[in-house]
């Protein structure tokens, strides 16, 4: 009976791998801005994997100079970013476990890193989250619900701009999320 249960377990174990596998990989970096009142926004930087980057470069770097002009950036936005931004940029932000609505991203830009031949997206998410009494636990997570795109957080610390913050602890999950208390 014990063996039987093991076999059954083995047969049903793959349920854990129910999700499809990603085909786009993004290294996501975040840069947090604070002022005297609290969190005012974050800059996000996505670095696409070289294989998918080659597709973006082929479609949008029309003059093939490996530099994205203003028109080409607009093309990148139109082909690749508009849809994502309307869906919340694969981003989920929570403050003390309460979801913060994802604002419309500003200052979108795209560039090609010639050395690594990768495409980099940057955008700013303006926020207005004042400091509250007690702990402020902020979590920023990137995830594609369809799992077509995988996010990896290579950061080893939280990058912050602003004098009034005081970060007490940081938890970085390489699978796309950063949480810290300030």
């Amino acid at each position, binding site marked *: 009976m014990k063996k039987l249960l093991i076999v059954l377990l083995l047969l049903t174990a*793959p349920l854990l791998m129910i999700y499809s*596998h990603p085909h786009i990989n993004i290294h996501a970096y975040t840069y947090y801005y604070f002022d005297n009142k609290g969190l005012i926004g974050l800059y996000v930087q996505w670095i696409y994997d*070289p294989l998918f980057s080659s597709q973006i470069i082929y479609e949008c770097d029309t003059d093939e100079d490996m530099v994205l002009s203003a028109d080409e950036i607009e093309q990148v936005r139109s082909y690749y970013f508009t849809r994502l931004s309307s869906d919340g940029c694969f981003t989920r932000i929570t403050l003390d476990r309460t979801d913060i609505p994802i604002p419309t991203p500003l*200052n979108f830009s795209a560039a090609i890193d010639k050395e690594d031949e990768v495409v980099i997206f940057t955008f700013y998410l303006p926020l207005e989250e004042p400091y509250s009494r007690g702990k402020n636990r902020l979590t920023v997570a990137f995830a594609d619900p*369809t799992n077509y795109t995988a996010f990896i957080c290579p950061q080893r610390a939280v990058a912050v701009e602003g004098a009034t913050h005081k970060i007490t602890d940081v938890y970085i999950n390489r*699978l796309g999320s950063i949480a810290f208390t300030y």
Partner: protein
Amino acid sequence: MKYAVFAIVCIILVSIIPVWAQVVPSPPLPPPPPKLESEQGPTTQNVTLHGNLAATFYELQMKGSTFIKKQMDILREGLDLKTLLIITFFSLGYGVFHALGPGHGKLIIMSFFMQEGTTKRDALSLSVIVSIIHSSGAILLALLFQTILDSVKGMQQIRVQYGFTLFSGILVMGIGIFYLIRLIREHNPVPKVQTPILPESSWKKNLIIGFSIGVVPCPLSLTIMMLSIVYGVFWVGLTSVLALTLAMVIVLYGISIATIKSRDYVEQRNTLKKSSPIPTAISTIISYIGTILLIVLGFYFAYTAGSAL
């Protein structure tokens, strides 16, 4: 008169100032940070780094696909037999690794082979059918995206693939429902049902289920094919995709055989202990689990892809 005009202008200007002051100008955006690097950032924070098996797997996958891309960059400059062999054999090994990861219809195939009556010949035919349809769909789609569908760009191309996933999910769900109805009809609680649910193995018979699973074009093969067309090295891309297809056949066949053997083990116990009703029940339950899993998975894939469309 001159003084009066001057006084009026001054009064107007002075009165404008408070009005102007009340209009709060939008705060300027903070300057963009310098290019962020993985090793950058203050280290005085109390940081807990959580490594993750999935993240490591994804990074390894990314390194593999990057390696293929770099080999294609070399072959773009001119055909080189050594590099062609490297890309072929690497694609084969990488394909096995890639196919062992989540996805690729492994769970659906396992659910299918949990049913009674499926054989090792079914395992071979289904593995080949799924892999060939999965890859050939990608090749065809790459050709279409570069020709008559060249207006479909960027995220629209990914939406096309979601469309295929939705279609696949509906088909798998439909097949699951069909098998479930058949199972319920053929189920006989008195002794053990000896009649197999499916007739003897045939390629034709497995074509429908194989098509349902494999109809989603392989995104990795799609990207490789598109890149190879752009680079003007179509045959290199095709060789790489063929190696990936072979790898997928190997993985799917291995998983199918493992499932059949596990199922047979349970059935063997059933035969040995006929007096006990538990193994009989377990054998039937496994068939039901497999069938219900097909429906659940089909629904899950259809729902996820439908939401993303």
